[in-house]
C-alpha cells in the first residue's frame, strides 16, 4: 500500500505541476468568505466599542484567519467531481482497477493542499497585518491542533464521499450539495464563532458534523478552548469520522449495485 501511494504521489505531483496557476486561483475560494465575515465582524465590533460577547476585534481576526487555514486544509471537492465522472461514464474504467477510486482522490486532495499551503500562508500574513491580530494560545493548543485538523480533513473528505455516492441514485446532486453547503454556512461557524450564535443554533451546531470540520479546529488553533474541552472536541471529531466511514462503506456498496443495474 505504501508503495502504491508513493507512485500515486509522484504521478499526482507531476499532474499538479501542469496546473499551477489554476491551483492558486482555486485557493481564493478558501480565503474570500472568511475575510468577508472578518471585515463585517470588525465593523460590528467597532460599533460595539471594541468587543462583542467576549471577542475583541483582534480575537475575531485570529478566529477568521484560523478559519481560513482550517477551511483550506479541509477542502474536499469529491461531491462535485464524482457526479461529473458518473455522468461522463468515467467511473466505469476506474472501477475496473484494483485500487478503490477513493485512494486516487486522497492523493489529489493531499497534493493540492501541500502545494498551495505556502501561498495561503502568505495571504494570511497580509490579512493578519491588515487586521490587528492577536494569538492568545498556549503551546499545547498547537499540539492539539495537529490531530484536530487531520481528523477534520478526513471527516470533510469522507462526508464529501458519502454525498458523492448519492449520485448513484439521483444522477444530479446539485441540490444535495447546496443543501449541505448552506447547512455548513450556518452551523459550521462561518457566520460567527459558535459561542456568538443564538443558544438554540449552538445546540444544533454541536450536534451536526459541520462544526467539527471548521469551527472547532479553528477555535483550537486560535487558542480559545481549555485543554479538557479541546480533548472532548477531538473525541467528537473521531466519533463523526467513524460514523462517516461506516456510512460511506454502506452507501458505496449499495450504490454500486444500483450503478450496474442502470447498465452504465
Amino acid at each position, binding site marked *: 500500500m505504501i508503495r502504491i501511494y508513493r507512485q500515486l504521489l509522484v504521478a499526482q505531483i507531476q499532474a499538479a505541476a501542469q496546473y499551477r*496557476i*489554476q491551483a492558486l*486561483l*482555486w485557493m*481564493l*475560494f478558501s480565503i*474570500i*468568505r472568511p*475575510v*468577508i465575515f472578518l*471585515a*463585517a*465582524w*470588525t*465593523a*460590528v465590533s*467597532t*460599533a*460595539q466599542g471594541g468587543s*462583542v*460577547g467576549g471577542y475583541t476585534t483582534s480575537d475575531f481576526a485570529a478566529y477568521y484567519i484560523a478559519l481560513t487555514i482550517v477551511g483550506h486544509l479541509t477542502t474536499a471537492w469529491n461531491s462535485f467531481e464524482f457526479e461529473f465522472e458518473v455522468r461522463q461514464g468515467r467511473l466505469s474504467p476506474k472501477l475496473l482497477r484494483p485500487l478503490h477510486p477513493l485512494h486516487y482522490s486522497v492523493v489529489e486532495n493531499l497534493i493540492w493542499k501541500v502545494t498551495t499551503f505556502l501561498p495561503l500562508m502568505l495571504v494570511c500574513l*497580509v490579512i493578519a497585518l*491588515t*487586521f490587528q491580530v492577536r494569538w492568545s494560545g498556549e503551546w499545547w493548543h498547537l499540539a492539539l491542533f495537529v490531530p484536530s485538523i487531520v481528523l477534520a480533513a478526513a471527516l470533510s473528505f469522507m462526508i464529501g464521499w458519502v454525498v458523492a455516492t448519492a449520485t448513484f441514485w439521483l444522477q*444530479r446532486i*446539485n*441540490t444535495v450539495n*447546496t*443543501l449541505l453547503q*448552506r447547512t455548513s*454556512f*450556518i452551523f459550521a461557524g462561518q*457566520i*460567527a464563532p459558535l459561542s*456568538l*450564535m*443564538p443558544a438554540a*443554533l449552538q445546540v444544533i451546531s454541536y450536534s451536526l458534523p459541520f462544526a467539527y470540520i471548521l469551527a472547532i479546529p479553528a477555535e483550537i488553533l486560535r487558542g480559545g478552548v481549555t485543554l479538557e474541552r479541546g480533548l472532548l472536541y477531538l473525541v467528537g471529531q473521531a466519533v463523526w469520522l467513524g460514523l462517516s466511514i461506516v456510512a460511506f462503506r454502506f452507501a458505496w456498496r449499495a450504490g454500486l449495485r444500483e450503478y450496474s443495474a442502470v447498465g452504465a
Partner: protein
Amino acid sequence: MVRYLRMFRAFAATEFQFEMEYRGNFYLSIFEMFLVIGTSIGAVLIMFGHTTTMNGWTLPEMIVLLGVYYLIQGGVNLVFSPSFERLMEHVRVGTLDFHLLKPVNVQFLVSTRHLRVVRAADLLLGLVVVIVGLLQVGAQIGVAQSLLFALSLFFGVMLVYSLLLGLVTLSFWFVRVENLLAIFWAFTEAGRFPVDVYPLWLRVSLSTIVPIGIAVTAPANAIAGRMDAVGVALLGAGTVLAVGIASALWRRGLRSYTGASA
C-alpha cells in the same frame, strides 16, 4: 431596437421551453434559491443580534442591500453568464463562425442568446427581500428615490456586464479563461456586505477590478436616500465608460478570432 427586443423574446421563449423539459430540476433550483437567500438573511440576523449598526448600516438597510445583491446576481445569471459560458465554448471549439455569419450585432447575440430562465426566480425573490427591507426601514420612498434606485440598479448590472464581457473576451487570446470567471464568482460574494466595511486593499480590488461592490452598494444607498442624483449620474457615466471600454476590447478580440479551420 424593436427588432432586437423581438429577438430577445424569441431567445427567452426557446430557453423557457428547453428548461421546462427538466421540470424537476427547475423546481429544485427554485428550492435552492430559497435556501441560499434564507440562510443569508439568517446570517445577517445573527450578526445584528449583537449590534444595531454596522458601519452606519441598520438591519433593515442591510436586508435591502442583500436583496439588491440577489437582484444583481439574478440579472447577471439570468442572461449574461449562461450566454458567456456558451461563448467561451464557441471560441474554443470554433463554432463562433455560425454566430458571425448572422445579420445581427454579434456582441448582442453572444451576450443574450442563452438564458437560464429559472434565475428569473432570483430576481423575484431579490425584489421581495428589498421590499421587506424597505417596509422595515419605514421611511417614505418618493418617486425620485425609486427612480434613482432603478437607474443605479440598471447601471450596476451593466457595470458587472462590462467586466464579464472584458473577462470573456480574453478567451480569444488565452482560450481557457473559466478560471478567471471562477475568481470573479468568488469575489462577488463580497457584495453581501456594504463595500465600506472592507479594508482598503480589498475595497480597491472590489470597486475597481470587480465592481460588484459598487454595483450592490449604490442602489441600496440610493433607495435609503444616501445617494443623490449627482452620485447616480456619476455612476452612469462610469458605467457608460466601462461598457465602452469592454465593447472596444471585444471588437479588438474578435479581430484575433481565427475560426474553426484556422
